[in-house]
Structure formats: structure tokens, C-alpha cells
């Protein structure tokens, strides 16, 4: 069938974006049809059109900007502190062997704790308001950044290190011109994971105890049995996370430019 072959050839040229859009369109159509036919209970999953209408209502709510701002503040504050601590502790563990031996078991132990279970404890420890949510975001962001920072700093090859020694480079020069640039791609990978986890932590903490924020919105709409608005709030959470991720990716492209030039 020449027409089909043309379509496939055209698709081959624009495969990735076209394929992604096609998958989404087919899934949405199938979902809408199933919902209208009553095959999917509305109490479980509303139709896409209902969610779209709810999105309009949601962004028009007077409280919506304040909720977005609250979650943004919690996430970015927690991420900044958690990432800073992760990089700082990572540097210390790599360059101070004694600290590495001292802290390693605790790092491993804390890594395996399911941190979302700490949210109710943090509310008890730190009370109400923003603090428990920020602490939750810090805890969630800290470990991936730490692990990646340590891995990145230790990824420097022995040959490169020997070269710097042969050039009589100082410790600072070896760090700033070799170790740190080599670690940056790993650190950014950790930052991207840490950022999404910081958002998750902030929202989970809002589930436990919050009057505003995107997580509190989800809980409010769940309480009102407004499933469409609940899904709309979840989508807003998702888009919010994607926006933060995209901003971080932009900065990664700027700061770790050599990675993308080499096609890695």
C-alpha cells in the first residue's frame, strides 16, 4: 500500500515527537470512549474531558496561586538545602578518608529507610507550618545528591590524576580543573533525582498536615469527593515537577556543556 508506506516513511523522519503525540492521542481517545461507555467507573477515573474542565476550574480558584507558591517555596528551599548538604558531605567523604569510614554505614542505613514514612514524625517534631515540609524535602533530596557527588568525584581516572601531578598542579587546581568538572555530570544526575524527590517529599508532608499547597489541594478535593478536581490537581503537580526538571536541565546544558558537545 503506497499510501501506508508514505505514512511510515514520513513517520520515520518525525518518528519520536509524532509517535509520542500519537500514543497520547490514542490513549486519551480510548480512555474517553471507555469512560463514556461506562466501562471505567467515574469514582475511580474520570473522563479526560471532565479532568480538562476541572483544570480550568482549578487554575481559576482564588487560592490557586498561593497553593503553587507554597509548594514551590517548600520544594526549592528543601532542595537547595538538601543538595547543598549532599554536595558538602560528599566532598568531605571523598577528601577526608576518616569521615568516609565514619559516615558510610549511616549513609547506607538512612538510604534504605522509606523516607515518606517520616512525614508524620516531622510534623510532631517540627510542628505546623512550612518547616516540616521543608525538612521532608531536604531529607528526600539529600541522599541522591550525596551518592552521586561521591560517585562523580571518585570517577576521575588515575591517568588524569597522574597527569595533573606531573604538571605540578596544586590540590585546588586538581580539584577545580579535573575532579569537579568530571563530577558535574554525576552531580547533575543526582540533582535531577533530588529535585523530583524534594517535590514528592513536600507534597507527602502536605498530605499529612497542610492547609495550603498543591498536596493540600489534592486532599481537599478527595475530601469533597470531587475526583475530577483531584485528578486536575495531580496533573498540576506533575506539570509543576516537569517545569522544575526542565529548568534544571537547562542549567545542566549551560554548565556541563562539554557533555552535550561530545554527544554523551
Amino acid at each position, binding site marked *: 500500500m503506497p499510501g501506508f508506506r508514505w505514512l511510515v516513511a514520513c513517520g520515520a523522519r518525525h518518528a519520536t515527537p509524532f509517535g509520542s503525540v500519537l500514543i497520547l492521542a490514542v490513549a486519551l481517545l480510548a*480512555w474517553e470512549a471507555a469512560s463514556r461507555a461506562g466501562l471505567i467507573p467515574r469514582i475511580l477515573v474520570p473522563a479526560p474531558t471532565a479532568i480538562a474542565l476541572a483544570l480550568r476550574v482549578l487554575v481559576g480558584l482564588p487560592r490557586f496561586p498561593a497553593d503553587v507558591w507554597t509548594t514551590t517555596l517548600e520544594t526549592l528551599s528543601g532542595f537547595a538545602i538538601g543538595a547543598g548538604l549532599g554536595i558538602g558531605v560528599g566532598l568531605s567523604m571523598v577528601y577526608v578518608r576518616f569521615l568516609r569510614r565514619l559516615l558510610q554505614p549511616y549513609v547506607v542505613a538512612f538510604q534504605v529507610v522509606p523516607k515518606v514514612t517520616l512525614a508524620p514524625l516531622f510534623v510532631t517534631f517540627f510542628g505546623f507550618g512550612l518547616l516540616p515540609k521543608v525538612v521532608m524535602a531536604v531529607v528526600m533530596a539529600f541522599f541522591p545528591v550525596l551518592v552521586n557527588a561521591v560517585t562523580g568525584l571518585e570517577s576521575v581516572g588515575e591517568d588524569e590524576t597522574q597527569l595533573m601531578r606531573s604538571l605540578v598542579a596544586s590540590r585546588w587546581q586538581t580539584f577545580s580543573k579535573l575532579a569537579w568538572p568530571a563530577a558535574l555530570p554525576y552531580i547533575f544526575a543526582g540533582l535531577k533525582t533530588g529535585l523530583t524527590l524534594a517535590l514528592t517529599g513536600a507534597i507527602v508532608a502536605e498530605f499529612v498536615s497542610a492547609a495550603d499547597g498543591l498536596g493540600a489541594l489534592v486532599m481537599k478535593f478527595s475530601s469533597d469527593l470531587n475526583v475530577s478536581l483531584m485528578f486536575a490537581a495531580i496533573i498540576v503537580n506533575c506539570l509543576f515537577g516537569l517545569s522544575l526538571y526542565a529548568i534544571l536541565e537547562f542549567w545542566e546544558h549551560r554548565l556541563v556543556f562539554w557533555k552535550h558537545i561530545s554527544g554523551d
Partner: protein
Amino acid sequence: MSAHAVVRVMKTSVIAVCVLGAVVTGSGQLGVNRAQPAVATAQQLTQIRVLLPFLNGTSFFPVGLADQLGYFKDEGISVDVQNPGESSDVVKGVVAGNGDVGLSLVPPIILGASQGFPMKVVANWLYVRVHDVYVLAASPINTLADLKGQAIATSDPNSGGMPLLQAELQNAGLDPDKDVSYVFSTDDLGPKLAAIQAGKAAAMNIEPNNQSAAQAQGIQLRCLTCDNSVRNTSEAWLVQPQYLQQHRPLLGGFFRALVKAAIFAQANPDAAFELMKNVRPAEFANPDAVHILLNAEIQSFGTYADGQHGLLDADGWNATQDFLLRAGQSDPTGLQTGVEIDTLIDNSLVAEMNNFDAAAIVTQAQNYAP
């Protein structure tokens, strides 16, 4: 990407979407069709899954007590009690088919019905309010309007008490989102009291178990909402319409067992107290508080009219709905469209649930020895 690869990706994508659709549909169907009670034991008891908005215990003493006294077994029933969360989770659970019968506060039922979710309310539970707003006795706060600019300590934002609290605040001339703030904590009295004592909240929205705990600790409280006339509709039982159609005698037996348990407790509260220790032993870490709570709960199990337990008051339901609709006028996410209350509530089981020899139950209670 080559043409073959594109075709492969497209075929895989279509298959994946179809499988996903089948899985979602199948799980939805499983949820909707989960209405056939399973035979639970060798004694041919039929199991009913009961969803409660809190842990089974003194707050829902007829459920635990009926089980302990064998009233469910007498009706050929065994109960599987689950706590999916708060009232709105109970409504969702029943509508989704994860429970056969659920107990919920009235506002989430009305909110769910207004969304078009199929349900029938078949029996009333309490004729007193579940949540009321309290302040410390020495507080300068005298009315809800005085709470402008203050915070209210309350439970889970998903709590069924929130819609009514927000409607109460609007009725008092306040904007619940702007004029007051909320301090959310667990269901216990402790965190709410700590919030007030720390100056982070001026009032608390609490349930009878919290009121009892305060009384047991000698803490004097004052109620701001106890004179609200919307009291005859606080908590009620709901089922799916098809479950009511298919299992009417079973439901009649279930509610009859609950009413018997309530009458037993009213006739001999001490025996009820002892029997409840087997339902949730951990609750009895503070037996004084449990004693106060149980007495309060027993007193709240009155009847509405003609001495019939479980009768649903249509006027009360309409009044509650009007209350919520007024609040929804300034909140686009609140109740926007009312429901036909006469279609939602169904009193057809009331005669059946009251069809037993109450005097015999009283005699049994008075003669009860563990």
C-alpha cells in the same frame, strides 16, 4: 529511525494501549461487580464487608458489640470490618465496590451523590452531631465569627467533618479559605490541645472521643456549634443500589443486629464496657476515657420518630443540603447542585431492623454475666 522500526514502535504502542485499556476496564469491572458476598465460614455465614471511617471500637460500639454478643451470627452474617480512611474514603469505597456497606458523615454522602455516584442511604446512625467546634472554657472566643483571623485545629483535611465545618464558618459570615486557617493533626485530642496551648490555634473541631478524653483529663471546654439545628443528620449507612436490591434481607439482619446491640448497651453499659475490651484492646490503655466515651456514645443512640431506630429524616437531610449549597455559592469546588433527597434516602429497611423483641434484649442485658 528506520521505517521497520517505526512500524514496530507503532504496533507495540497500539497493543500497549489496548492492554492498558483492558486492564483498567477489567479492574473497574472487578470493582463494580464486587457485590456478591462470599460464604465466609463452614457455618454458612454470609460475609458483609463493612467500611468504617475510623478504627472499629468504642466510637462504633454497636458493630463490635453485636459481633461479641453473636447477634450477627444469629442473622447468618459475619462481618469484615475495614477502615479505609475518613468518611469520603468510605463513600468512595462503597461506590467502587470495595465494601458492601459503609458508614459516613452526611456531607460526603451528599457531595458524592451530587457528582452522580450511585448510592442509597438505608439507615441513620446518629441523631447527634459528630464534629463540633470547641474552645477552652476561659477562651475569649464566644462565637464562630470571633474566629476571624484565627486558626482552628482539626483532623485530616480529608475528614468528613471539613465540608460541614466550612459551611458552618460561611454561615457565620466568614470565608473558610481566607478568614480562618487550619492546623491539621491526627484524630487525637493531644495535638489539637497542644496547638491551642501553644497559641497556634484558637479553637478545635473535635469528635465525641476527643470530648470524652478532655473530660477525663479534667479539661473544661465550651462548644461554639452545639446549638446548630442541623443535627438530625450526622452519620448514616450507605450501600450501592444494586446491593440493596439483591441483598435486602441480609441488610435488614445486619441493621437489626446493630440496633439490638445498642439496646443491650443502653440496658447494661457496664456489660457493654467489658465486652468492648475484646474488640480493640489497645483502646483501653486509658479506661477512664473509654468509659466516658462509651457512655456518651450510648446516650447518642436514640431514636428519631415513632421509636424507630435508623429512620432517616428527609427534612434534616434537605436542611443539611441547603446548608452546603449556600456554602457552595462562594466556593466553586463545594456543593453546586443538589440531589433529590427522597431518591437518595431509603427507609424501607427501618421496619425490618426494628422487628425484634426489644424487651428480650433488655432482659438479656440485665441478666448478662461474662
